[in-house]
């Protein structure tokens, strides 16, 4: 494993960030193990569960399928960047009020994915929300309260 490390200069949640990474390291592992942001979760490492969803330059991606080196010069947003000094993001507030989480492991991914939808489509239909979130698995809630929370956040933002 004697490879040279790559220097990555990126923006994470609006702040400039620099780190060194091995070329094979995923964005998920870089966020969790190098940058220290453990809000993005490992569920499957093959892009099927969405627990690691982050936003890169306005697109939601499974961070387990993106190499850390690829975000050089890009803008990355994670669940840790959603709340501000003014308080929770409307989606976070709605998830709490609608009991849209049980164990909470999929919640960061659902929040980032939902924000990716509402940033571009402020008033999505229920069908659109369900379609958009079909890449994120939740095994606890049966999805209904997540859908309700996204609708409520859309109404409140």
């Amino acid at each position, binding site marked *: *494993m004697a490879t040279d490390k790559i220097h990555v200069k990126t923006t994470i949640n609006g702040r400039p960030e620099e780190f060194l990474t091995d070329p094979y390291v995923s964005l998920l592992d870089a966020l969790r193990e190098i940058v220290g942001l453990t809000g993005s979760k490992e569920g499957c490492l093959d892009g099927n569960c969405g627990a690691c969803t982050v936003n890169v330059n306005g697109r939601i991606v499974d961070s387990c399928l993106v190499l850390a080196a690829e975000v050089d010069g890009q803008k990355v947003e994670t669940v840790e960047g959603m709340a501000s000094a003014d308080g929770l993001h409307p989606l976070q507030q709605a998830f709490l009020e609608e009991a849209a989480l049980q164990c909470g492991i999929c919640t960061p991914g659902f929040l980032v994915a939902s924000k990716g939808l509402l940033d571009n489509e402020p008033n999505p239909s229920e069908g659109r929300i369900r379609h958009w979130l079909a890449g994120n698995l939740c095994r606890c809630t049966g999805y209904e309260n997540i859908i309700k929370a996204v609708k409520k956040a859309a109404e409140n933002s």
Partner: protein
Amino acid sequence: MTINFESKKKYNVIGTNPIRHDGYDKVTGRAIYGADVKLPGLIWGEVLRSPYAHARIKSIDTSKAEKMDGVFAVITSKDIPINKNRSGIDVNLKRDVDNILAYEKVLYKGHPVAAVSAADRNTAKEACKLIEVKYEILEPVKNVDEAIAKNAPILLEDIEADHLGKTVNNTNIAKHFRHELGDANNEFKNSDYILEKEFNLQMVHQGYIEPHNATAHWDENDHLSLWSSTQGMFAVRDLTAGFLDLPISKVTSNYVEIGGGFGGKTKVYLPPVAAILSKKSGHKPVKIIMDRISVFQGSGPAPGGKIIVKIGVTNEGKINSGAVDIKLEAGAYPGSAIPAAAVCCLACYNIPNIRVDAYDVLVNKPKSAAYRAPGSPQVSFAVESVIDEICEKMTWDKIDFRIANASKEGTRKPDGVLYHKIGFIETLEAAKNSDHWNSKIDKKDKNKIYGRGIACGYWHNGGNRSTVDLILQDDGNIALNEGSADIGGTRTSISMQVAETLGMPVESIHPSIPDTDKIGFTATTGGSRTTYATGYAGWEAANKLIEEMKKRVSILWEEPEEEIDFADGNFYSKKSDLKMNIEELATKINPTGGPVTSTASVNLSAAGNGFGIGICDLEIDPHTGKTDVIRYTAVQDVGKAIYPQYAEGQIRGGAVQGIGWALNEEYYIEKDGTMANTSFLDYRMPTALDMPNIDVIMVEVANPLHPFGVRGVGEVPIVPPLAAVGNAIKDATGSRIYSTPMKPRKILEVIDNG
């Protein structure tokens, strides 16, 4: 001891929906789950697993892996302390320890064989590839038919199995037991109609999104600290201590958040492995995260199996006899959900003559684990399908027939236990009066076919040990410590019961879950026991706190304790007009004898049997077999919904898991005995796009064994969907599918063959 509580009608806190205490950490990404634990000097571990379903280990050569740069230690089963004296190990402990690192034989693909610690996760994975294992490949046993066949390969060569009290060797049936009530065999001759059918089910996985993980630090003073994703930190402590031959007081199991369990995180896989690696790596902390393929191959499935149901009814619409043969796949080691399956199968009905034959069957698949009402969905699929068919044959109303035969207070379950007060009839009546049952199916597309099914389900729910500690803070708030893993809002459901008792808002209760050294033993979160039993301990601790506070008020008022009353958060003098609330008392309490604290521990033997019903409308595309649930109503007796949003959430989530089980989910086993579909792409769980909204109707027939009437809610809802879906398929296509999953191929077969 059994105390009977009167059900109270009006509560201030119970039945409301506050924001859960741990919610803020969980929506901001701050909550610490097992994989998020960071310790100074942390290194990584990885597990090498068997590529074969059944093989004898001839040799393991770890030398190349040990020499790799960055590797600290390589271990095999011989490094497990209790294996140093194999002959002295209790047989159950021996099976458990052999499951965490195989000894002499591997019994399923994914069975751990060796483990490595290294500076980083990638190096640990690479080092595993350098371990050379020589196997003698054996023929795999893939299902119960193969397991019981003549000359079947035997999984456990040292087995001493109990078959109806007789010890049997050289068998894959790890246990055979029987429940009998009345005389089922003879009473069938008095039945006017008898139906007997066979059902086959595949294994399914709990499908928690968070993989298993463990971090262990074995220090130089032989104290072991553990962090792992588990439903029971005390079980992790006790089992790990057992494997490592350490006293439990030398092991501290720390609480971390858990990303789903559903019963699958009641087993211990990684903590002992990480612990041994830690010790052998110069006492460095070691973290292991199981990858998803290994989660499927090496952890948790719920048993598949074969179930034969025979039910006899009289022309008057009474079930007079029931006989059930259940063979469940235990996986590689004994201990499937067969004891519960044998009780749950006929628990919904008052049947005078019952025979249940139950078999725990070894197969070359991972050791099965609990999955939400373990054993009950499988047997209910069989029994509720037969009930449906009998009702159709006899042209009986499917709900009225069930009401006429429903279990009630005083009915004897198949294991002979009598029910106390239960709410099954009330639940059936609620289903009968529901909007869903009284509306027609919404047949929107004339190119599709539609059907409706109904089915019932039962789970006994659990009691067991729980501890709650309370501290009255100087500002009048309450610090609450409890030992139950919180998988979905139980910090709050326990705090609400304490708040109700103390007459305070739930926001004044601040719950924490400390490590195993700082709270009394609390059993694993499972069996729908937490809101019931830990909530009971919370109620008892709150009452003890009130008694202690009364003593302090008595000192302050210089009045005898007996003259002081407590109601709705206030102390009153019976003889004067003195009055004081808890907040005010808190500011004056120190001169009366220092802080006020209380602790309560319970060990509850009985819980509140729970019953549920699923009503399911399906839309089937007859050309592709694609099946969608378009409407589903779950009706359930919850006893009392402490935290209704989350009680409903349990019911919805359970129903959706049951629907996934019914339609899609299975361990697809290849000819060589290995699982073919080890990713979420191929093991397809329901997505947001697959599911309709689930209507929930909660019936509240208070459980007299709990101060607020709680029965437990989490498990019952997964029981009815399998048969509700199967019965709906029968309604739509005219044909029944007798196996799970009821996937498109099978649906097309029944449509084509009529």
